[in-house]
């Protein structure tokens, strides 16, 4: 806790402005004492027992007559707060501006000694050169052992301060020449320097410092010292200064008329108001308190900072350090400028020395409205992003809509103009939902005619049961492929359709998507082709049969008869010479051989055995003959096959046997073959197998191997099936199954050799 004790003598007046006398001093003192007592009582009541240390601050000027010293006091107070002690703070002021006369000063001295003889301070803080001198004068007799900390000293330590004093502190660094350098740098056209000041004791000291400091510039610049004028006269002079002039203000606590001023708050504003040139000052208090746009600043002393450092030294001393052990330091001046003045005098801030402090800088538009601008930009960005987002969304939506529309158009076009007949019907009630143009062409029903009707309503299926099963299968299986159905057109014409169906969902409803193509013409063509093929086979067989019959019935009979004639000739010609008999015998043999050859040709063209002896005998015979012919082994077996199978079935089986066995012998390289002919429940099955090289069935079939195709055609003619199983190096098996009951019952007999 810090207690300020202001004593009777030397306390500055409470009123601001020029002070001409010392009034109401007792009242103030009583009030302060009461306040102090209260504070002490509070401390005691709080029970905080701390060692009491007395600190006395002695100022050159009172806190009311000098804002600068007021700041010094404040800084000291702030600095002493770091002390662990209970500080009793006493504040005294020489009031040099108010009571500069010797009588007043002597009286103050007497009162001071009297007052503090009984209550010597533990530390004295002397703020100001005169205060330090004052303490130095008293030191020998009164405060021999009292440590002294000084601050706010102009220039050097006064000569009165001897080494026997236990003193340390902060020396003020008054550097008018530094300010002048900066001023010349900022205002390079400067030719005249006007130094302003007052006639007070305090003022003379400052003026002397400036004059000393400017000595090196006197040859370069025109210096004018306006320090002994009345304020009005000074103002008048300052209002009409030539251009290229700067003003350096020292201090003015009294003018030539004896009028007193508080320098920073009274004299300087009056000077500034009148001056038509930029004003440079000594300390920061002048700059800050001037409140004007004419006081520029300079290399400024900061007394408060010095005081704060000094207070720190006082605390160290109170803590037991000796003042002489604490080195004296110099204050840290700072380049400090008033922004408004820079603006007023056209000084660019960029030209200021590095590290300069600029006071009252009016924030630029950017600085002033940065937050708003940033907020605005942010909002704009957010809005822009939102708009962009919306635009993007809209564009995306439009694109999607466009894509969807195009897709729908494509689908619609595809659907409408598809070469396939497409229909969509509900699975719930079978009603048509949509049909396309090809459907209309296929069925002859227009779209509007089938809408809401079922396939059964328009009698579409030739076989309604098939249609019912079809829809059931689609529902169960989900899809149907390779369907063939006969449909009835609106005009009653029957067409064959081939297609597939898929179970789909349209707006949550299960529907059947059917795709059909009209294969009527194809079917007709296929049937015609099959018919042609059938007829070709028939014709071939017929022709072979005819030739075989001619050979057998005619040629062979003739040969037989000729043979008989020869025999007759031999029998009925008595005395036939041996030579003739021999020749006749030979002729007979040749005729018989010819007959056998013809018989063989006839047999190859058409096996009479097939019809006469049946398919088993014919096949067996063929196997034997071919085995003998090719020197191979053909194992034939049969089981339960009737002799009188329908001729076309027998012929088919026989021809397949011939073809497959001949192919096998020709291509397989095998030597062992097996032929099995057997009757199953309702089929006759022929199996021809070999253990040969085998072949790629698909390749051979795709190459339209005539033998295989011929077999297939023949088998299909009797509604049989043929299965060829073969793989390279895996042998081959040809399996033919034909219905045992004649499927072409009543059909004409293909072969009929008599």
């Amino acid at each position, binding site marked *: 806790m810090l207690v300020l004790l202001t004593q009777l003598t030397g306390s500055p007046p409470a009123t601001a402005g020029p002070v001409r006398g010392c009034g109401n001093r007792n009242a103030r003192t009583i009030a302060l004492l009461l306040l102090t007592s209260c504070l002490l009582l509070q401390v005691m009541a709080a029970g905080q027992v701390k060692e009491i240390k007395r600190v006395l601050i002695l100022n050159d000027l009172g806190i009311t007559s000098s804002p600068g010293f007021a700041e010094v006091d404040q800084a000291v107070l702030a600095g002493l707060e770091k002390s662990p002690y209970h500080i009793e703070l006493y504040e005294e002021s020489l009031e040099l501006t108010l009571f500069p006369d010797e009588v007043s000063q002597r009286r103050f001295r007497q009162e001071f000694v009297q007052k503090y003889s009984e209550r010597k301070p533990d530390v004295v803080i002397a703020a100001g050169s005169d205060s330090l001198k004052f303490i130095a004068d008293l030191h020998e007799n009164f405060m021999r052992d009292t440590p002294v900390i000084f601050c706010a000293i102009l220039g050097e330590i006064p000569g009165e301060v001897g080494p026997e004093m236990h003193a340390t502190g902060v020396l003020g660094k008054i550097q008018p020449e530094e300010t002048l350098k900066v001023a010349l740098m900022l205002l390079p056209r400067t030719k005249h320097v006007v130094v302003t000041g007052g006639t007070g004791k305090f003022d003379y000291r400052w003026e002397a410092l400036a004059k000393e400091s400017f000595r090196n510039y006197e040859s370069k610049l025109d210096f004018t010292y306006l320090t002994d004028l009345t304020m009005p006269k000074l103002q008048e002079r300052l209002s009409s200064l030539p251009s290229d002039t700067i003003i350096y203000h020292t201090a003015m606590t009294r003018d030539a008329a004896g009028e007193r001023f508080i320098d920073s708050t009274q004299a300087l504003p009056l000077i500034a108001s009148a001056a038509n040139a930029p004003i440079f000052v000594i300390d920061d208090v002048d700059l800050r308190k001037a409140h004007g746009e004419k006081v520029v600043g300079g290399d400024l002393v900061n007394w408060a900072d010095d005081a704060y450092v000094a207070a720190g030294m006082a605390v160290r001393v109170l803590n037991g350090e000796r003042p002489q052990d604490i080195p004296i330091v110099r204050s840290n001046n700072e380049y400090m400028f008033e922004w408004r003045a820079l603006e007023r005098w056209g000084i660019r801030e960029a030209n200021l020395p590095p590290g300069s402090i600029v006071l009252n800088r009016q924030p630029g538009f950017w600085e002033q409205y940065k937050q708003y601008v940033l907020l605005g930009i942010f909002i704009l960005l957010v809005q822009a992003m939102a708009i962009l987002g919306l635009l993007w969304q809209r564009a995306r939506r439009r694109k999607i809509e466009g894509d969807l529309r195009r897709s729908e158009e494509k689908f619609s076009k595809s659907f409408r103009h598809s070469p396939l007949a497409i229909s969509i019907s509900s699975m719930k009630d079978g009603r048509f939902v949509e049909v396309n143009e090809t459907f209309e062409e296929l069925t002859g029903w227009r779209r509007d005619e089938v809408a809401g009707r079922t396939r059964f309503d328009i009698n579409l299926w030739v076989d309604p049961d098939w249609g019912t099963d079809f829809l059931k299968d689609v529902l169960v299986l989900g899809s149907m492929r390779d369907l063939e159905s006969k449909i009835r057109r609106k005009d009653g014409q029957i067409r064959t359709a081939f297609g597939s169906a898929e179970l789909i969902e349209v707006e949550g409803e299960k529907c059947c998507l059917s795709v059909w193509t009209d294969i009527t013409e194809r079917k007709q063509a296929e049937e015609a082709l099959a018919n042609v093929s059938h007829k070709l086979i028939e014709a071939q067989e017929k022709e072979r049969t005819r030739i075989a019959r001619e050979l*057998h*019935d*005619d040629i*062979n*009979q*003739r040969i*037989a*008869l000729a*043979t*008989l004639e020869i*025999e*007759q000739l031999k*029998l009925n010609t008595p005395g036939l010479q041996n030579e003739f008999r021999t020749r006749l015998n030979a002729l*007979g043999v040749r*005729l*018989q051989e010819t*007959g*056998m050859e013809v*018989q063989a040709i006839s047999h190859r063209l058409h096996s*009479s*055995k097939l*019809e*006469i*002896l049946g398919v088993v*005998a014919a096949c*067996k*015979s063929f196997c034997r003959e071919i085995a003998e012919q090719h020197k191979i082994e053909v194992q034939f077996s049969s089981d339960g096959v009737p002799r009188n199978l329908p001729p076309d079935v027998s012929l088919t089986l026989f021809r397949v046997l011939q073809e497959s066995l001949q192919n096998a012998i020709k291509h397989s390289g095998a030597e062992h073959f097996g032929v099995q002919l057997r009757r199953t429940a309702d089929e006759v099955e022929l199996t021809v197998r070999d253990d040969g090289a085998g072949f790629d069935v698909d390749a051979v079939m795709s190459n339209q191997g005539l033998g295989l195709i011929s077999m297939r055609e023949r088998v299909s003619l009797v509604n049989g099936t043929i299965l060829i199983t073969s793989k390279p190096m895996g042998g081959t098996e040809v399996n033919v199954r034909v219905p045992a009951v004649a499927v072409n019952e009543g059909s004409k007999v293909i072969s*009929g*050799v*008599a």
Partner: protein
Amino acid sequence: MGRARVLLAEDNREMRERVEKLLGPLYEIVDSVANGQEAIHSVLNLTPDVLVTDISMPVLNGIQLASHVRDAGCPARVVFLTIHDDDDYVESAFETGAFGYVLKPRLDYDLIPAIQAALQGEKFLSH
């Protein structure tokens, strides 16, 4: 006891005439027909002792004819006269219960012995 009665079934007219000429002096040719179907009719109506038949004939071949004759219980004994010099035919022919199998080129030499053998219940096969 009169001459044996012979029915001839042969689709080749020239051959048929030759056979008739050969057999006529020895047997009673009860009928000469040109196909199996006619032969059945004649066999059933005329009940010959011997049926001389070709194998390859239109409508109904000789094997079928012989089977029908057998199945009908007709006592006529069958002698095949054919140009099929083939064991399969021979086998099938005798399976029908036939008594003779004569090759046409051996007609002059073998047919009458074959008929005679048949009349005596013996089998005959041309060589």
